[in-house]
């Protein structure tokens, strides 16, 4: 399946673009996706935190991803 990942803030700057498309095995977990992105973009490892959101909710590490999910990479938020 193809996953489309939205990127924000410093994650967008590290990757150098605001969306990423990656091919992944069906049902790949959040944790597996994160590990892969962190390997490809080592600067992501230096962030205070890095979460994945699926359909506007924070996703747990073991949540499986699906092609039609709205996926986003969430670096440490700093609103307010």
């Amino acid at each position, binding site marked *: 399946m193809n996953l489309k990942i939205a990127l924000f803030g410093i994650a967008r700057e590290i990757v150098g673009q605001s969306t990423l498309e990656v091919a992944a095995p069906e049902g790949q977990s959040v944790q597996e996706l994160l590990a892969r992105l962190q390997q490809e973009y080592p600067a992501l490892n230096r*962030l205070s935190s890095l979460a994945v959101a699926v359909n506007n909710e924070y996703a747990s590490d073991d949540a499986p991803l699906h092609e039609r999910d709205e996926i986003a990479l969430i670096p*440490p938020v700093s609103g307010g």
Partner: protein
Amino acid sequence: MITIDLIDQPIDVNAALQTVEDDGAGAINTFIGTVRNKSTGRPVIRLEYEAYDSMALHQLRKVAEQAQQQWPMLRKVTVIHRKGTLNIGDVAVIVAVSTPHRAESFAACQYIIDTLKQVVTIWKKEFYEDGDVWVAAHP
């Protein structure tokens, strides 16, 4: 009643306050976050807020709903966050709540701004004379 907004224009504080008026509420607590002229001792020139809009709006509403569950006497809640470029003194966020009695207005308002800062998908970049930093990005 919950009012949530994420806008790229100046926040109208007076209009926001009017949204929480309620004849059954004797107490209104409001938190306004503005852009300070320095951050950890360093002079700040301006800020830029970037948002993941759909998630930010969804999470803002969730935070407001959680506050209503925790303080059932809460009458009205308004949270408006600004995004884009902000200058010193500009209002970045306003949280306003109305309750019958005052203690709950303080507690609910503080809960909302504290939780907003932990979960809402908005990112702040501070610009200094000699550079810029995504706030809280690194340990």
